């Protein structure tokens, strides 16, 4: 029995217990808190090591070889930490809601932990799907819109994510068939990676499989032009679901690309047509979505679209494929997850208290809610990429790492980096404008809000502190990724 199995099982068991009638808040917060301790201990124990640790495997099928195998390396642990942090915060900030909010949050968190900590392609995929159902149900049932509209949003999300998952499945099946080698099919990621190391595929084929995986995983991460589900989904989803999905679950697609696609198809992203396509798509994410975000006139729209936009930077790192850029991508995944969860959590509170998020109706909130404003500012500045917060370290590493190969002539990649830098400017424009509109000046509607009670500040302080600590000491996380990705 590995500690990772306990980490995966705890939220799922807690969800079951809540469903059976255990006190929802205590049970779920307890499980999330124990999980946080377990993950942090695992990280401390892992420090200084490399490769997979805490491995354990239970065979399910012999041929095709399928087993419930857990194991974690630096990336998995960083994302597991992100998951438990966001899960704890999301659960904590739930107030006066039916039990299903706790159950759904625990299921999404448990599914995400399962996806990040298992090493069998089948289970990686399966756990992610497990996390999608509660997302979909919660949007459809408790979304913040008229029933017909939230249902439409839920359907759209499900269809996009369902189709994306199937494309992904096709790509995974292809990869499994190519890399199984010999007479036996295997889903074990390590076995597949070894085979890929021994007998790499021809370049053209790598490109083809990588492209399918990119579309599949990319749809889950809202890669342009498969992004249009994300903004309405996050704007409609209940707060904990928005926090968990945009903060954690969306990172699954990037994690899959880093852990499955890149090791199996190391040259896949460098095949010219694949790289060019990827560069075009990520520019869509950064520039087009950046402009869309600037024109948003509600806070939830701004946040949802900005979350789509920021994914572009991580795809840039994947397109570049240099070690520094990829490590920066992991750092940015963590940072973005924490900061967007913080912002969505605060945004949910605002909507509950004010009933509207339209910029035209808001203003001067800082006056009666100073703590709230400070916490929100953390999210805003992290999202802009202010030095001292984690996002800055991540973005810097990505830009520097992607530009590394510059030798006098600008390649497509370098041009993309240059254009992407404008994204940072755009984030500053829309985030600062949102911040000024909401917290400064005065509201012509007379709306105002007060600070949350001290216990209700805890989840947000937790997230803000995480941003600050890992922002000032990014090596805490970077040291976990000693070996090249």
């Amino acid at each position, binding site marked *: 029995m590995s500690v990772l199995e306990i980490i995966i099982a705890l939220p799922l068991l807690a969800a079951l217990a809540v469903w059976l009638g255990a006190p929802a808040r205590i049970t779920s917060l307890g499980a999330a808190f124990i999980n946080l301790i377990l993950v942090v201990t695992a990280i401390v124990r892992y420090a200084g090591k490399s490769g997979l640790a805490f491995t354990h495997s239970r065979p399910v099928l012999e041929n095709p070889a399928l087993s419930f195998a857990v194991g974690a390396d630096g990336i998995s642990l960083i994302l597991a930490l992100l998951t438990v942090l966001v899960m704890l915060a999301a659960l904590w900030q739930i107030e006066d809601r039916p039990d299903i909010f706790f159950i759904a949050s625990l299921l999404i968190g448990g599914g995400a932990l399962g996806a990040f900590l298992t090493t069998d392609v089948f289970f990686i995929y399966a756990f992610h799907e497990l996390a999608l159902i509660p997302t979909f149900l919660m949007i459809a049932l408790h979304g913040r819109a008229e029933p017909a509209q939230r249902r439409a949003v839920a*359907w759209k999300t499900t269809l996009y994510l369902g189709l994306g998952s199937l494309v992904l499945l096709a790509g995974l099946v292809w990869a499994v068939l190519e890399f199984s080698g010999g007479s036996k099919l295997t889903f074990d990621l390590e076995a597949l990676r070894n085979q890929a190391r021994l007998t790499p595929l021809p370049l053209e084929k790598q490109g083809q499989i990588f492209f399918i995986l990119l579309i599949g995983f990319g749809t889950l991460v809202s890669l342009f032009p498969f992004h249009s589900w994300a903004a309405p989904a996050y704007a409609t989803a209940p707060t904990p679901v928005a926090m968990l999905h945009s903060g954690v679950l969306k990172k699954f697609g990037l994690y899959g690309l880093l852990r499955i696609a890149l090791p199996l198809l190391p040259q896949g992203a460098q095949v010219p047509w694949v790289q060019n396509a990827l560069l075009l798509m990520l520019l869509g994410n950064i520039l087009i979505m950046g402009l869309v975000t600037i024109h948003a006139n509600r806070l939830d729209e701004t946040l949802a679209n900005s979350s789509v936009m920021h994914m572009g930077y991580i795809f840039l790192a994947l397109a570049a494929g240099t070690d520094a850029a990829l490590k920066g991508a992991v750092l940015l995944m963590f940072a973005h997850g924490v900061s967007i969860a913080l912002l969505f959590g605060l945004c949910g509170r605002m909507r509950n208290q004010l009933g509207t998020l339209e910029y035209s109706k808001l203003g001067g909130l800082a006056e009666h809610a100073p703590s709230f404003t400070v916490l929100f500012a953390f999210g805003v500045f992290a999202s802009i990429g202010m030095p001292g917060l984690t996002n800055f370290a991540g973005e810097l590493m990505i830009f520097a790492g992607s530009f590394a190969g510059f030798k006098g002539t600008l390649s497509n990649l370098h041009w993309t980096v240059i254009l992407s830098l404008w994204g940072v400017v755009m984030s500053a424009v829309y985030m600062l404008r949102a911040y000024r509109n909401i917290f400064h000046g005065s509201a012509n509607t007379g709306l105002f809000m007060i600070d949350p009670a001290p216990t209700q500040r805890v989840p947000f302080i937790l997230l803000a502190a995480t941003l600050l600590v890992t922002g000032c000491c990014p090596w805490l996380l970077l040291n976990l990724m000693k070996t090249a990705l």
Partner: protein
Amino acid sequence: MSVFSLEVGIALLGLVLLLIEAFQPSISRRALGLTAIVGVSLALVLLPFCGTALPGFMQPWHQLDTLAFFYKGFSLVITLLVLWLTLFCAPYLTRFTLDGRLAEMFSLPLIVCAGMMWMASARDLVTVFVTLELVTVSFYVLVAFARKSALSLEAGVKYLILGALSTGVLVFGIAWIYGATGTMRFDGIAKALTLTTTSHSAALFGAALLLAGLGFKVAAAPFHIWVPDVYQGAPTPVTTFLSIGSKAAGFVVLTRVLDIFLAEGSVIATEIQALLLFIGSLTALLGSLPAIFQTNIKRLLAYSSISHAGYLLLALACHSSARFDLSSGGIVAFYLATYLPMTVLGFFSTALLRANGLGENLKDLTGLAKRNPLFALLTTTAFASLAGLPLTAGFLGKLFVFLGLADHGYWGALTCAVIAAAVGFYYYFKPILAIYSGGDADSPSANAALAFPAIHKAVAIVLALIILILGVYPKPLQGMLKQEPAAKMAR
């Protein structure tokens, strides 16, 4: 005790119950139903310990390999569940029968069961035909059982006419195959098909007709038009039986004959393979796409059953999968074993709605999560598994099919199957969404608890657990179906 005597015993029990019901009207039908359940359970318990001895006269007609054993067990299980479902539905169903009682509803399933068990052991086309008719003729009666319900009568007539037609096509095909190969026996046909002297076109024509006839039984496109009406009209236990038992029976025969048609060196292998891929893709799509628009749960499940038949046909088209432990027949058997609990549970949910005085439409599911959380969870499990959600049994079956198709490089068929599965996510989630939505503002009576008797609760929970366990621990089932080379030779 040998397997053969067990089968005879089941058939005899069916006949005895039929006679009792005819001449002793005073005996309660419930007692008859319970007797049937006890008999079938006993047979199920005995099956693994049965010997393979056969009376001499049956030797040429009967074979016992892994698949035959599996399908015999499968038939017993589904018969048992159908009998249970019949008992559950009895208070509602009797309102629609002529004498207000369930006369043959308990004896005919036993005869169907015996027919399916023999079919699993068939080794020539005559046995196939006789046992298939035994099953089909019993179904003609069962489908139209609710005589006072217009829908049931309509279903009965449709099933009778199209069933008779398909039987005709089947016999015609058998005749052509006999003409082309000079034998009815599977091994003889297999040998004849490898000879260059065998008439290619005659054999192909016969094989195509045979596939058409069997395609009707398993609800393959384009012979699937009858399915929604019949499934909707027939009493729910019968629909369950049709959708699982009859389909499994069709597929065991298909597995056997396709094993011959697609065998290495068979002169018609290429054409039949192409035909199967085409029919399979078409069935998966024509099952899935119309399902989007269904509002009746039974019709939805009917279209779902069509699309599952499509995946099964595609599995059969991947004849030799050297990279799996399972042969294509094994994959089909595995798929059917996963299909059984989820479909029974799906139909059980409609029966439970009926028992509580609700309709069978999707809107009747609204708010059920509030009225009975357990029922909501069980039904969610069933539909999630039907959709093929990972960690449920339904996903593994689909995964095997997709892997097989990808392994052979049938990309066109794989695309169709993936599209059908994607559409499945939409229509299987409609009932789930309905269950969890609404229910707040309804009248107090609508929020009253749903009657769900304890014993039925237990059966339903067991079915849901099977779905979940098979989804994460399929090894025992896979081991059961692993092909032993020895058994293959015995044919």
